[in-house]
């Protein structure tokens, strides 16, 4: 027995694994996007590898700079498309399909008990479905493309228990920002986190994805929610293959435990330039912002857009407000249910599904001295533009901020 990470990595490496062991594990699914595929394919070719280990287990979404922002990006993207075609990789999701982490979940690749590795740090998102999922760099991805395997140090695990009903005006984003405040930005380095408690049990898949997505912001290797009925219902008719859920043993050893009662939680804001620089919204209320961004792999799901629309409907934004749905399906649903109209009438701009300006590449890069309230995952110095500040909050906090042009408490509008 052991933690979920120990058991999944043990199964994938063919022998029992304990925290601290080095194992070579079989990878079930590998993902690299337009940003990381360039170097991954280069390394793959330099390794003199010819054919990928299994083209049906490789997923390549175009999301980071899609559609291409200039000729050089366009050329590099064409090379990725050509290489994928040569290799027979059919799971290529081109411009407009959405953010990689949303797509792997929606398309049923993120499943309990699987080992999923992505050439993107937020690949830990798939832990929301009970997978062991982690991010690596391009050369590691080339190794997986070649052999379907990768070395791992089996991580110790922190057990995080979150209990209590989330108060009105708060969301899973506030929970994970609160956890980041406790664990600090390096508090889970080399480690995994398992999430338990009544709050998590009641949380829909969308919220669990937000939680697991941000585990990397504490340095975490994986963030895992044990699969339950919510997970299985989501995967019904969606999972691309059979799967076997993995649960921690009763004797599992945890290196640390954190217990939070969120029944009194207020909306949280991470102030620049660190994700663990977290305060209650009241402390920064009134701070002027130039832009609001609602989207990304962290908070660009239908539930997030609907939450924002709940506040924005019938009101008018006072600053540039960008909405970036995390996938085509989410965008279609937002149009069909009418919330897209509510957002547009409020003065927001809806961009194409993808990463948007989260990493400062395009579609809303900011000027020196400007500030943004974003539902994304990083507020590092210069991330969305040199000299610009990024505040992180929930879609509710972002929407309340949009109609004020200043950071605002969403509870005033609910």
């Amino acid at each position, binding site marked *: 027995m052991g933690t979920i990470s120990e058991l999944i990595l043990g199964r994938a490496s063919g022998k029992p694994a304990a925290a601290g062991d080095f194992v070579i594990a079989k990878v079930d699914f590998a993902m690299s996007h337009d940003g990381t595929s360039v170097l991954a394919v280069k390394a793959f070719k330099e390794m003199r590898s010819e054919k990928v280990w299994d083209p049906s287990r490789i997923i390549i979404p175009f999301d980071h700079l899609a559609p291409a922002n200039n000729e050089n990006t366009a050329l590099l993207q064409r090379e990725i498309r050509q290489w994928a075609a040569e290799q027979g990789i059919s799971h290529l999701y081109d411009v407009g399909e959405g953010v990689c982490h949303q797509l792997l979940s929606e398309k049923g690749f993120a499943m309990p008990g699987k080992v999923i590795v992505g050439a993107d740090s937020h*690949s830990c998102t798939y832990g929301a479905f009970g997978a062991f999922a982690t991010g690596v*760099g391009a050369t590691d991805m080339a*190794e997986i493309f070649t052999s379907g395997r990768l070395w791992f140090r089996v991580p110790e695990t922190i057990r995080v228990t979150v209990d209590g009903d989330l108060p009105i005006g708060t969301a899973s984003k506030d929970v994970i920002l609160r956890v980041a405040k406790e664990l600090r930005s390096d508090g889970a380095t080399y480690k995994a986190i398992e999430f338990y408690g009544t709050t998590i049990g009641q949380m829909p898949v969308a919220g669990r994805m937000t939680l697991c997505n941000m585990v990397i912001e504490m340095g975490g290797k994986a963030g895992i929610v044990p699969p339950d009925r919510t997970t299985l219902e989501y995967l019904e008719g969606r999972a691309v293959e059979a799967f076997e859920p993995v649960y921690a043993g009763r004797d599992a050893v945890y290196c640390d435990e954190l217990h939070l009662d969120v029944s009194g939680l207020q909306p949280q804001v991470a102030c620049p330039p660190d994700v663990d620089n977290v305060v209650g919204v009241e402390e920064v209320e009134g701070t002027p912002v130039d832009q609001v961004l609602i989207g990304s792999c962290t908070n660009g799901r239908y539930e997030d857009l609907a939450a924002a629309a709940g506040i924005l409907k019938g009101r008018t934004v006072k600053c540039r407000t960008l909405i970036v749905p995390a996938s085509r399906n989410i965008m279609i649903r937002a149009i069909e249910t009418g919330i897209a109209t509510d957002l547009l009438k409020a003065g927001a701009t809806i961009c194409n599904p993808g990463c948007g300006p989260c*990493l400062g590449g395009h579609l809303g890069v900011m000027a020196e001295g400007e500030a943004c309230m974003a539902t994304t995952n990083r507020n590092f110095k210069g*991330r969305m533009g040199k000299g610009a500040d990024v505040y992180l909050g929930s879609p509710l906090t972002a929407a309340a901020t949009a109609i004020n042009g200043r950071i605002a408490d969403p509870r005033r509008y609910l």
Partner: protein
Amino acid sequence: MNFKGRVWVYGDNVDTDVIIPGKYLRSADFRVFAEHAMEGIDPQFRPEKGDIIVAGKNFGCGSSREQAPLAIKYAGIDCIIAKSFSRIFFRNAINVGLPIIEANVHDILHRGDVVEADLEGGFVVAHGEKYPGTKLPGFLKEILDAGGLVAYRRDGK
């Protein structure tokens, strides 16, 4: 593997966005990354070949971009000494053949001081004093010795 060089000193949580801002990532030319290395935190960063970066905890936190260790390596840095590294940066550095060692010396060094790092011995020497560092497991050392994972693979290992 021994290194001796002048140091560039930074604090905690040096993230990948300041090591190489996102706007420079769309290239396959390593010189582009090297030109903009550390731009987000230190516009004066102009190392000479053989220089060493010394930093606090959680060096390289953030994105999985391998351009971060590549930028530092091709800027001329021979080795990074940090109190700790983020997990993905740690893997990426080994994979691109950039030597790293964990040791806690950033508080006692200033830009331009000279430091020595001994990766086999697992220690660092600063101002004549020896400070303990971590040793890499054997197979990671082999990847580093080969010059990175691509070379290691190509050599048929």
